C-alpha cells in the first residue's frame, strides 16, 4: 500500500510523461493542419502538386487528393479531443459526436481516397503496398472501433481506436522523420522511403505497446 506522498509522486510522473507525449503531438498535429490549409486555395504552386502534375490532370485524382487532405486534417484535430479523460468523463457528448464524425470521415472519405491514391504513391512497389496496407488497416481498425463500442465493449473499442489513431498519425510522424533525415543529409528518395517505413511500423509498435500496457494494468485489477 502506497502512502499519499508516493501516490502524488506517481501521479506527477504520469502527468509529466503524458505532457511529454501530448504537447509535441498536439504541436505537430496543428502544424500539419496549418500547412495543409493553403492547399485549399486550389493553387497548383505546391511542391507536392508540381511533383505529381501528371496525376493532377486526372479529375478523380485531384478530387481524391483534396478529399483526403480534408479528411486527414479533420481526423488529426478531432482525435486530439478523443483521448482526453476529462472530455470522456465530463463532456461525454463531445467524445461521442467527435467520434461519430471521425468514423464517418475515415470510412467514407479518408481511407477510400487514400487507397486510390496509394496506387500512384511515390516509391517502389513496396512503398505502394505499404500505403495500401495503411489505408486498409486504418479503415479496418476504425470499423472495428465502431463495432466494438456498439457492442458496449469499451476496452476493445479503446484498443481499436488507438490502432486507428496510430495510422492517422503516420502523416505527422512521417514528416518528423522526413525532416530529421533531411537534416542529417539522407538523399531524398531514401529519406522518403525510410521515413515512410519507420512512421508506419513505428506507430504500429507504439500503439501495440500502449495497448499492451493498458491491458496489463487492466488485467492486474482481477488479481486482487
Amino acid at each position, binding site marked *: 500500500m502506497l502512502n499519499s506522498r508516493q501516490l502524488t509522486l506517481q501521479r506527477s510522473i504520469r502527468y509529466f510523461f503524458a505532457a511529454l507525449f501530448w504537447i509535441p503531438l498536439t504541436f505537430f498535429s496543428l502544424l500539419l493542419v496549418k*500547412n495543409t490549409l493553403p492547399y485549399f486555395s486550389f493553387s497548383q504552386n*505546391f511542391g*507536392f502538386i508540381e511533383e505529381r502534375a501528371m496525376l493532377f490532370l486526372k479529375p478523380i485524382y485531384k478530387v481524391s487528393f483534396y478529399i483526403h487532405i480534408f479528411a486527414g486534417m479533420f481526423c488529426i484535430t478531432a482525435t486530439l479531443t478523443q483521448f482526453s479523460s476529462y472530455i470522456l468523463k465530463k463532456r461525454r457528448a463531445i467524445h461521442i459526436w467527435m467520434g461519430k464524425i471521425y468514423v464517418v470521415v475515415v*470510412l467514407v472519405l479518408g481511407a*477510400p481516397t487514400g*487507397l486510390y491514391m496509394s496506387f500512384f504513391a511515390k516509391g517502389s512497389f513496396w512503398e505502394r503496398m505499404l500505403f495500401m496496407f495503411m489505408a486498409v488497416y486504418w479503415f479496418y481498425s476504425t470499423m472495428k472501433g465502431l*463495432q466494438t463500442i456498439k457492442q458496449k465493449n469499451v476496452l476493445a473499442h479503446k484498443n481499436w481506436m488507438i490502432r486507428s489513431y496510430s495510422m492517422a498519425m503516420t502523416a505527422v510522424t512521417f514528416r518528423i522523420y522526413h*525532416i530529421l533525415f533531411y*537534416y542529417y543529409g539522407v538523399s*531524398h528518395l531514401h529519406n522518403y522511403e525510410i521515413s515512410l517505413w519507420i512512421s508506419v511500423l513505428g506507430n504500429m509498435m507504439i500503439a501495440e505497446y500502449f495497448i499492451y500496457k493498458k491491458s496489463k494494468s487492466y488485467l492486474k485489477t482481477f488479481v486482487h
Partner: protein
Amino acid sequence: MKAIIYAGIGLFSAATVYGVVDYYNTQKTESFKKLYADEEPLTVLEKPAIKNAVLAVKKNDAAVTKNIVTINTVSKKNKKPAVRKIRLDDFSRSRIADVPLVEEVKLDLPVIAEPVKEDAAQPETITPAEEKAAEVAKPERKLSLSMFSRAPLKIKKDYKKVKL
C-alpha cells in the same frame, strides 16, 4: 451506423477496383514513367574568379617578366554535410531539395610569362585587381514549418558575399 460501414466498404471496394484499372491504364502512358523521376543532382557553378597577381615591372630591367597568374575556381561538392537550419515552414512530406555545398578549389595553373618589351617608357605597375564581392552560392538546408507536408521541399539558396 451500419449504413456508414456499408457505404465505407462500398467506397473502399470501388477505390480498389478503380485504382487497379486506372493504374494499369496510366502505366502505359509515357508521362507515367517520368513520374517522380529524380531530378539531376544540383551543381552550383559560380563564376570563375580570376585574380591577377601583381608584379612591379621596371623599365630597364629586361630580365623581369610580367607574370600573370590566373587562379581559377571551380565548384566542387563538399564532402562535409551542409549546414542545415530547422525551419518549421518546410515541415512537409514533399521533397526537401538537396543543395550541395560549394567549395572553392584553387587550381595550380602554369605561370604564363610574358617578356617585357624593351621600349617600355614608364615603369609599369599592375595594381591588384580590386577585391570583388562575388556572389557565391552557399547552400544551406533550412528546415521550416512549411516543410511539414508531403510536397517536395524547396531549395533554399542563401547567397553570401565572399571576398575574392
